[in-house]
């Protein structure tokens, strides 16, 4: 069996391998051969054709029996790519239908399109602002009721004894509310868990995350975030706003709701991935701007996180959406706060205004800020490492929904318990301020007229705590309180992120940072014996908050602008930027950003800005999948149905070629004449666009782009399409529907080149062609498409001189990444 070289046909048992050799930097070097063999044992579902050398005798004998009969399974880890994620079709399909439609559309039509884009952006901003407003008011009201109840209870029991009952009441209230939020997330829409920023990041990167932009997700997200904030978890409501904005954008731009089965017959032109994705970036920006009152920050967030495809008009529209969103929120909050028309109170989180005399900073403080940035980076990296291990544990062991709900409830109860204990044992009493900045002052064992300072930090919604850390006068908190608070809140927040509740990590990070930043400020002030007040604790709280947030999420440009806008003070631009830079540099040395970790742990094929640095020697030949499942220009319906129904090869793009013989040994690659998508094929099958039927039924309506758009985005699965035995024998003419000019690369193209094409053009499939392509082919691309003419066949002859030898998809590229030991390769897995 060993030491043989053989050519394997794609349907036979592909005995493969290649003992890649120990010590190879590729991760799967020594593992991959074994499983693949087992997979092929399972059945010949995996059409793996390989030219391979087998040289692994000892591994065979030891593993073969034990592994036979079941697919290779490994525990979940970060080095996987999931099959469940697909790419978005950002590339325009310039088939004949498209060209016909374009010809029909008047100049006015294009004008109207442009105007309706603006209208959609305005609507996105407006609705996002409304949602933000709703969340804000709901959280404020419900949290108000909860804290009032607990506060009254505590006051009662402080006097008569039995505070442990208050503790239990608080814990039970918290876990009951959180249970509600966790149930809707865990049982109804698991994708709504977490902050949603990783998901949106992936979406903007071009990955279609299933169900991420549905109405149901939005509803669950909004209710979930209200529950988790009111439930007293260490979370914020800002991250979810970004997701909500994105969902709103994806919904509004389509002019219909598939979930509600309502079609308003508007914006039909936007029903494709290209347009939708642009609107989603506007929605994400609107979400950021509503959350932080930072319109420019929102635009930059979209730019930084998502937009590989950016143009000036799009930016301007996105900015419009952001602005509208902020000011919608403003307007409705001003009505809520009973001074309608006041538009100057933006943002869900309002850091408050820093008075100009306390914000002055001096040159000699810059090194201090940078040092704080480094601390933020370190703490952020620690946070991320802890959360990474916790998340792996959760994916592996806490994956049943009821367990997830229980976990969330336990976290809520423990959060309440820890907070209560901290408050109970705190001796830090402060006099009540004249204007009552404390919303729910708890007196507990303090003297009358004073309140427990620990309680302002714990017994409050996190946003309010952040604000009081920024703005309360020096001396409001004593260092011990702040230290203990930082410590407990750090672990609580770390523990909370990744639960199956919808909640963001922005506010907890800010809170941790503000606490230790304020601590730094107090210590600095006490070090300098003189009575000068240069170390204003509020200022250091702000810097600490920026450092901590930067250390955890590692955003740079957008975060700087968001912080500057949220504080409303541009003089802090420089220190915040320096702090964020330092935090990112220091943090990246140890661990990636939190969102990147979560993207990796979800096995998403995410394409970063650049290909891995040391990958120039990899060529398309090694990267591509081969052989490719191709279709003929005139294909039998039965074949198409079979290919689509094959669950093991869930391909989405099929090169359309001229004449593929059934028993192609793989040595004679087919000649390319176009590319067709699974979704298109499904629509074609559904409408039964068969050659024979078209002949018999003269009145048969010609298929239009509209039919494809109507099916978008939820194309029915192939199983739901019934094809009778007779119809299986029919033929389908794909030429009219395929994309006649798919992007192609020669097989010696280097990985970074391929990568750049993918990243810049948003490609989904890239056909790798033979070296022997001729110039004439390229010329043909520019000639007008002529179809259904006898001449057609002749033209096609020129057209097909490209020979398909492979297909590169996103997953083929995303699997290479630079690990600790050089270039590593991720494995594909079913999740």
């Amino acid at each position: 069996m060993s030491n043989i070289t053989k050519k394997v046909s794609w349907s036979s048992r592909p005995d493969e391998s290649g003992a890649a050799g120990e010590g190879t930097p590729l991760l799967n070097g020594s593992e991959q051969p074994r499983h693949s063999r087992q997979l092929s044992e399972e059945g010949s579902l995996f059409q793996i054709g390989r030219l391979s050398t087998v040289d692994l005798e000892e591994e065979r004998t030891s593993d073969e029996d034990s592994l036979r009969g079941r697919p290779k399974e490994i525990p979940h880890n970060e080095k996987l790519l999931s099959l469940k994620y697909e790419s978005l079709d950002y590339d325009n399909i310039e088939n004949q239908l498209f060209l016909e439609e374009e010809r029909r559309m008047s100049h006015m039509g294009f004008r109207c399109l442009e105007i309706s884009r603006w209208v959609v952006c305005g609507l996105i901003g407006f609705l996002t602002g409304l949602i933000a407003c709703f969340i804000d008011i709901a959280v404020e009201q419900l949290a108000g009721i909860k804290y009032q109840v607990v506060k009254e209870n505590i006051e009662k029991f402080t006097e008569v004894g039995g505070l442990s009952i208050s503790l239990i009441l608080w814990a039970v209230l918290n876990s009951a509310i959180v249970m509600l939020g966790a149930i809707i997330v865990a049982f109804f829409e698991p994708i709504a868990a977490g902050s949603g920023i990783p998901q949106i990041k992936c979406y903007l990167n071009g990955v279609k995350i299933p169900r991420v932009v549905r109405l149901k997700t939005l509803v669950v997200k909004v209710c979930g975030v209200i529950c988790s904030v009111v439930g007293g978890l260490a979370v914020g409501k800002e991250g979810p706003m970004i997701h909500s904005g994105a969902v709103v954008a994806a919904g509004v731009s389509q002019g219909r709701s598939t979930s509600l089965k309502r079609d308003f017959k508007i914006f039909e032109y936007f029903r494709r991935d290209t347009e939708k994705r642009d609107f989603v970036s506007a929605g994400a920006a609107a979400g950021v701007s509503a959350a932080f009152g930072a319109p420019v920050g929102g635009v930059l967030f979209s730019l930084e996180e998502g937009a590989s495809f950016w143009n000036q008009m799009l930016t301007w529209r996105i900015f419009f959406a952001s602005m509208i969103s902020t000011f919608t929120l403003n307007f409705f909050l001003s009505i809520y706060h009973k001074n309608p028309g006041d538009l100057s109170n933006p943002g869900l989180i309002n850091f408050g205004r820093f008075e100009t005399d306390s914000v002055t900073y001096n040159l000699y403080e810059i090194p201090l800020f940078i040092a704080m940035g480094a601390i933020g980076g370190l703490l952020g990296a620690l946070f991320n490492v802890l959360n990474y291990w916790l998340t792996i544990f959760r994916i592996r062991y806490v994956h049943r929904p009821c367990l997830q709900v229980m976990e969330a409830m336990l976290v809520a109860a423990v959060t309440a318990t820890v907070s209560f204990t901290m408050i109970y044992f705190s001796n830090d009493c402060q006099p009540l301020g004249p204007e009552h900045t404390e919303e729910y002052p708890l007196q507990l064992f303090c003297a009358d007229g004073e309140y427990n300072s620990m309680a302002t930090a714990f017994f409050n919604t996190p946003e309010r705590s952040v604000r009081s850390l920024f703005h309360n006068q020096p001396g409001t908190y004593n260092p011990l309180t702040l230290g203990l608070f930082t410590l407990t809140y750090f672990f609580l927040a770390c523990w909370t992120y990744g639960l199956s509740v919808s909640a963001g990590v922005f506010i907890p990070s800010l809170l941790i940072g503000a606490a230790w930043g304020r601590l730094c400020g107090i210590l600095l002030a006490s070090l300098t014996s003189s009575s000068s007040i240069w170390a204003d604790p509020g200022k250091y709280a702000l810097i600490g908050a920026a450092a901590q947030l930067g250390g955890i999420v590692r955003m740079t440009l957008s975060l700087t602008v968001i912080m500057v806008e949220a504080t409303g003070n541009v003089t802090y631009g420089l220190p915040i930027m320096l702090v964020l830079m330092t935090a990112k540099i220091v943090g990246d040395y140890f661990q990636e950003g939190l969102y990147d970790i979560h993207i990796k742990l979800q096995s998403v094929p995410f394409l970063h800005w650049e290909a891995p640095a040391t990958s120039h020697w990899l060529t398309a030949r090694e990267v591509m999948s081969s052989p490719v499942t191709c279709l003929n220009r005139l294909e039998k319906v039965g074949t198409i149905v079979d290919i689509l129904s094959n669950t093991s090869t869930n391909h989405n793009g099929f090169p359309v070629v001229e004449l593929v013989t059934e028993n192609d040994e793989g040595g004679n690659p087919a000649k390319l004449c176009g590319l067709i998508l699974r979704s298109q094929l499904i629509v074609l099958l559904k409408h039964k666009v068969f050659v024979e039927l078209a002949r018999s039924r003269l009145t048969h309506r010609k298929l239009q782009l509209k039919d494809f758009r109507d099916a978008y985005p939820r194309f029915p699965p192939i199983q739901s399409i019934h094809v009778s035995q007779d119809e299986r024998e029919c033929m389908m003419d794909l030429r009219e529907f395929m994309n006649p000019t798919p992007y192609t690369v020669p097989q010696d193209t280097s990985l970074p080149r391929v990568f750049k094409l993918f990243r810049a053009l948003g490609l989904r499939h890239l056909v790798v062609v033979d070296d022997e392509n001729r110039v004439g082919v390229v010329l043909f691309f520019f000639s007008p498409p002529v179809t259904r003419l006898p001449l057609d066949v002749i033209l096609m002859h020129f057209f097909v001189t490209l020979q398909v030898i492979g297909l590169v998809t996103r997953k083929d590229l995303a699997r290479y990444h630079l690990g600790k030991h050089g270039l590593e390769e991720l494995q594909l897995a079913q999740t």
Partner: protein
Amino acid sequence: MSLLKNSLFSAVLVINVYSLVYGELDSAPSVSPAAAAVFKPGADSAFPLSLLSSPDDPYSSDYCTDLLHIFGQRYVTYVNCLVPAARPVKVCQNCFSSYGSFVEIYRNISDEKGPGNESCRDQLLRSDRLMLVYLLYNNLKDLWGRSNCDQCITENFHSLTNDTLYFMTVHNQTISCFQKYEQGNHTDLCKNCKPFYKDLNELYSGMEKNQTLCIDIEDAMNMTRRQWSKSFNCSLPREETVPVIAVSSFMVFLPIIFYLSSFLHSEQKKRKLIHPKRARSYTSMMNIQDKLS
């Protein structure tokens, strides 16, 4: 002990008041004689006249000079009343009438027309850069506003409001109770004066909600609370440590049990690996090795 703290606090407050008055005046050095006059009772009657009725000013009429004179007198009266009332704060109860007359004269200056329909407004208030009269008035008005005295005084500065009077009665009861038991054991005091103190506290909280507090009431309450909590140590003791610790450690144990049990009993989630179709996996591996080595 309590006295010492009181006096300390009062010192701070007095300084505040002084710096308020002085601070503003100091900003205009030319006024310093007038400022001195303000705080030297007895020296004011002759001094301002001699300065004000200067014959070289052709624009100031007798009527206005008289008004200015009265203004000066009333200013002095009010400030004289304020300073002793600074600690303990009684600026509203003691000085509201003098403030009323002070405001009245300023109104006369600024609004009313005198004989011959002449108005002193432009002459006295805004004929120079300093605008001293206006400045002085504003300072005191600001002081009044800050002390929230309007909440405790009826319209037109007639008397204290009923709420205030009632509060003062209850407060006095409490204080007299304190004085009664002060000498003995403080636990007796805590027990016996608790009803009074509680009433007072509730009354105060009610007024706080209605926004009918002025500085006098706030200060009186503050002092009482301070005495109650700090001097007599009557605040609530922390005596339930054991049950709280027991309950919280139970709560903290729950997640540990949860994670352990899910680790032990829950089935670990496995991922099925899928093998991609590759053209030449072995050669590519070799390539990687070759090219790296």
